[in-house]
């Protein structure tokens, strides 16, 4: 269980990192937190000839909160973003979701942006990226570009990022004032990969729901947004059609069976978790943005 040999590159600037990536092309892989990549290397599921270790690159570790988004640099660790009070105040869903990312000892090293670039369907932060209409900022030999979250994820562990590009930052969009959010997931052991998980955003006018969207963890091949508005808009908190919502979720998700749980169980779990998080999020005093 050891990684295959590779050449280690330690660029100090983004320009150097991009230059090395351009040179090594498809033989290269970017290393930031490494909490998903190093297990893949150790199990020899991946054996890139070159690792571009960006941990020494200056200027990638900032969190910026503006009127429209929370911008997270490529070297911001999950634990750092989780502790960031400004980010949590602007977009509570970030902290709600990050508490579910692996174990604390993984969150101290793993980066939020790396987890998005890794595009694992069982990752929490890809689901948050799509739900908030996030934007991925990439840099490569052909310059910089921005990719909307909806156009970024193309399959399990697959994105529209080119082999010689790296993600510099991700901007999470702020939700309209008054939006309530919630995040819940279920795993065999707290902190392990979720069997199913749900991120939820609900617009409210008093106790009447005006809009509702959800995205999912571990039950869709690519994180996408399910509009629950048709079932919920105009309904008051005491009168939510939870069975209709559960049915919408059941028909939307497409989980796979594996050693941990059959597809049917994950489908049921996604529907039940949505029902629960919808109830807690719309309950007064909880989940207010």
């Amino acid at each position, binding site marked *: 269980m050891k990684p295959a040999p*590779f050449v280690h590159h330690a660029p100090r600037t983004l320009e150097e990192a991009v230059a090395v990536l351009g040179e090594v092309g498809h033989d290269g892989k970017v290393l930031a937190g490494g909490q998903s990549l190093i*297990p893949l290397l150790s199990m020899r599921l991946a054996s890139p000839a070159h690792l571009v270790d960006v941990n020494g690159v200056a200027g990638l570790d900032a969190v910026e909160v503006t009127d429209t988004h929370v911008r997270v640099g490529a070297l911001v660790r999950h634990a750092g973003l989780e502790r960031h009070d400004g980010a949590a105040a602007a977009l509570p869903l970030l902290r709600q979701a990050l508490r579910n990312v692996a174990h604390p000892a993984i969150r101290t090293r793993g980066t939020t942006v790396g987890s998005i670039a890794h595009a694992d369907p069982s990752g929490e932060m890809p689901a948050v990226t799509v739900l908030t209409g996030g934007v991925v900022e990439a840099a490569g030999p052909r310059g910089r570009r921005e990719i909307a979250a909806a156009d970024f994820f193309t399959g399990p562990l697959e994105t529209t990022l080119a082999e010689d590009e790296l993600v510099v930052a991700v901007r999470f969009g702020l939700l309209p004032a008054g939006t309530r959010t919630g995040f819940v997931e279920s795993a065999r052991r707290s902190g392990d990969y979720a069997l199913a998980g749900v991120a939820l955003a609900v617009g409210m006018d008093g106790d009447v729901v005006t809009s509702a969207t959800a995205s999912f963890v571990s039950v869709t091949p690519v994180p996408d947004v399910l509009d629950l508005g048709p079932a919920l808009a105009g309904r008051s908190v005491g009168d939510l059609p939870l069975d209709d919502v559960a049915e919408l979720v059941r028909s939307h998700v497409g989980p796979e069976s594996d050693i941990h749980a059959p597809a049917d169980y994950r489908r049921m779990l996604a529907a039940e978790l949505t029902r629960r998080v919808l109830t807690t999020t719309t309950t007064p005093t909880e989940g207010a943005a």
Partner: protein
Amino acid sequence: MTDAATEQLLEITLRVNGVRRTASAPARRLLSDFLRHDLGLTGTHVGCEHGVCGACTVLLDGEPARACLVFAVTAQAHEVTTVEGIGHDPANLSPVQQAFAECHALQCGFCTPGFITTITAYLDENPQPTPEEAREAISGNLCRCTGYQNIVKAVVRASEIVREREEETR
């Protein structure tokens, strides 16, 4: 450009338990192996080697991290604390080590170094955990003897010992 097939050897310098240590190792050397094989610090135990079991947990700049999920070369700029750095004198145990002894929180002891480092960092963050919080705090560490009840007790007891020692030195 260097060929990956020929192993790239690097001079790696780490600050471990307050001491600067240098050794030559390949770029692919995991921090867990660097500590054990290259520096002879065998207190850090290696279990699953893919981040699940927590046996290799060390502190990087005071925060818990899986030593099997960090390359030694990446850890160069960091302060590493292993279980040896938390205490290796039986007459002068750290609060967490003393609590483990008092509560019989170890059986075979293989997972213990990872628990000690994890709990030491956790108590800095939450000095007075409830048993429920203690349970959550250790959820990332596996004990194959399944001795979790006494480990949970030890987390709570360790927080008491920290306070008792503070009062003694007052």
